[in-house]
């Protein structure tokens, strides 16, 4: 088992290094944004005195390098600092937002991932017949339409006309799980439609690729049913590419859903980040950037590890 552990340790170390590099990029990126924090906070109606007072108070006159290291050491200890605009503690403000984002992403994934894989298997089973074409057609159409438009269409039909689910996906602590699920039904539906096609097509392609192999022919000649062949013999060998694309989509569900959050007024990370970008609230932007990068790198690392573990050639290198 030694070589595999070494491989995993390498992967994790590389990910951490990557994260550190990204923290530099985030910091530099936020430094070179145009505009002025104080002006953005006080808006059009700011007087020069008020601006000067605020700039001094925010410590915008310190050198950038020392600000980077202060920030990095703080972040390592779980202290992301205070928001410039409201003075709130970022760690606690982000944790509720992040929890909301993960809640939405989790339920979208719970529905979308099994559905995509099942539809992929179904498409392979009925390859080039009408179920395959129907599944591909519908999922490709739903990925091609911009997500906000799907959102508006569902909002109009389901919330305004039928009144089955609310159009405003407001959740708060006073709600029980069932009320929360009712509230996020529409955004979950839209996200499912958006991520379905990618995962489903990849499942279909990966399995079809394996289906050409000689051992599949053997399995068929043994007299196994098509579904059993796919499930027992083809699927395990195509796990790696499928996990890769599933992880990419999970990452998207966490970091890329700001449009859905705006359309459905969902209090997640995306809206929180955008508000602070427009106010030049640099510490919050940096914290969000770091968390998003960590999510992306983390999920990709999981995908890597799963493909290593699922592949005997990588698991037992010579």
């Amino acid at each position, binding site marked *: 088992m030694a070589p595999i552990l070494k491989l995993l340790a390498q992967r994790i170390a590389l990910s951490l290094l990557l994260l550190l590099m990204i923290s530099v990029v985030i910091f530099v990126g936020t430094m070179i944004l145009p505009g002025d924090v104080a002006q953005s*906070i006080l808006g059009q109606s700011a007087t020069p005195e008020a601006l000067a007072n605020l700039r001094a108070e925010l410590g915008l006159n310190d050198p950038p390098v020392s600000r980077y290291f202060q920030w990095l050491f703080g972040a390592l200890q779980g202290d992301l600092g205070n928001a410039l605009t409201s003075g709130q503690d970022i760690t606690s403000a982000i944790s509720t937002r992040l929890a909301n984002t993960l809640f939405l992403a989790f339920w979208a994934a719970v529905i979308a991932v099994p559905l995509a894989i099942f539809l992929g298997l179904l498409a392979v089973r009925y390859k080039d017949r009408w179920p395959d074409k129907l599944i591909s057609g519908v999922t490709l159409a739903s990925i091609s339409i911009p997500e906000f438009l799907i959102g508006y269409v569902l909002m109009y039909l389901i919330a305004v006309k039928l*009144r089955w689910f609310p159009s405003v996906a407001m959740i708060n602590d006073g709600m029980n799980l069932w009320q929360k699920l009712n509230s996020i039904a529409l955004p979950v539906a839209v996200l499912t439609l958006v991520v379905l096609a990618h995962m489903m097509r990849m499942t279909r392609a990966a399995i079809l690729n394996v289906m050409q192999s000689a051992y599949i022919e053997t399995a068929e000649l043994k007299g196994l049913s098509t579904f059993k062949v796919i499930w027992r013999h083809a699927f395990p060998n195509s796990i790696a590419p499928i996990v890769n694309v599933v992880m990419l989509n999970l990452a998207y569900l966490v970091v890329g859903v700001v449009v859905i959050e705006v359309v459905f007024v969902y209090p997640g990370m995306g809206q929180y980040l955008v508000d602070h970008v427009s106010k030049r609230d640099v510490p919050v932007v940096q914290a969000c950037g770091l968390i998003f990068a960590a999510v992306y790198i983390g999920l990709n690392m999981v995908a890597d590890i799963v493909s290593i573990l699922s592949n005997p050639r990588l698991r037992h290198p010579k």
Partner: protein
Amino acid sequence: MNDHLKHLAREAALGRMGRREFLGRAAALGLTALGANSLLATAAKAAGAQKGGTLRVGLQGGSTTDSLDPALATNQVAQSVIRLWGEPLVELAVDGGIEGKVAESYEASADAKTWTFKIRSGITFSNGQPVTAADVVETMDRHTGEDTKSGALGIMRSIVSVKADGDSVVVELDTPNADLPYLMTDYHLIIQPNGGKDDPAAGIGTGPYILKSVDMGVRFVAEKNPNYWGDLGNADTIEYVVINDNTARVAALQAGQVDMIDRVPPRTAKLVDRAPNITVKSTAGPGHYVFIMHCDTDPFANNDVRLALKYGINRQEMVDKILNGYGTIGNDTPINASYPLFTELEQREYDPDKAKFHMQKSGYDGSILLRTSDNSFPGAPDASALFQQTCATAGIDLEIKREPNDGYWSEVWNAQPFCTSYWGGRPTQDQMFTTAYLSTADWNDTRFKNEQFDQLLIAARGELDTAKRTQMYADMSTMLHNDGGLICPMFNDFVDAMSDRVDGWVDDTKGYPLMNGYAPMKMWVKA
């Protein structure tokens, strides 16, 4: 006849007679539409504001970065939330006059330099502490102090001292100002315990509601303050939901998730009004969309160039196409009929020949660069394109540069010589002129520097004869109209919408959208 009218009004208020029918019959009895409308509103009030229930409002403009500190309030949502829990000394009344809030009355010295506000007796903050004159003094001090970040700092500069005198507060000014009470209606100047110096964002004030749940940029819940001194506030609970996306806000109203929304996009307002159970309300206000030129920068330093551009804009087309009719045409002054001492000037029309004449007279023949962005006002890039076309007819080459929304207010507005922008307006001429057209004003975004204008402005503040004062403001408007750097094509209406679940709307309330921000409290949920 009077009894008959009252009877008709009551019938209309109870819904037994349509509003239109009532207006028709009232007109037959010799009443003007304006009088009839206000009679109707009074009757509706009498016919029964219903107490209780939860009123839900969808608002645009909130952000997660907002603060409850009134000094830092910059947007519509922050301002609406402040109205729930806090009050200034005095407030703008429905008709544009002044009504007392924390101060129950006020009086001026003969020279309008010393003002005395009498604090309402026996009122308390929502934390149970009684309101004293010292709290008011501290509040004013917090907004004027050297290190303040308050948005009210600009209007507080003329105040020399604020002192407590028993249960009154005495305000001394450096120059006379007959409009001081209007300055005190500013939404930043909320009276807080010890002036909010201990905890500015605590949300503790004398307002009709008490905040129960605050999630910045997302949702606010407030419950009726049982100890409130007045009778404002009908619903037991008011809930504000921030819905910045226009389509989502309208959908939330249609789906019955909120009872009223602000800022219905003019483009779709007529469609929204056609939806069942929904009414769109349009209110004329002092807000205006503008093209601003720096009077001290070439080529705009030449008044003929400014005049050429003023004649080169088609104001009616802008109102029709950019505001979809929800607004009125402007006349190159920031003042319209919603100001108390308004005098109508001769309307400047679109005239390509005059535009061409002034351009030739100026001797300038290059192109003119206009900067614009989406957030400078809704439809600004489209308005710029219309302006470009009408200028082309007059032989003026207008070049449009689209700037990013991001940083527009710090990099372009009040920095570049010609750009699009908007003004929300102010309650009085004095405040509007002082904010943006006095030579020394921080936001003199047209760099308009005219000694005679400045002198008139200062003199008008101390002039207590209304007729003379009206004439002075008319003269100032004429100066801006002829020499200013402001091209004002249109005044935008506030367009709000509400469902049938609520009642009690009052037309033509002065101030901000949603009945100056008081609609959620003054209206009620129908039982």
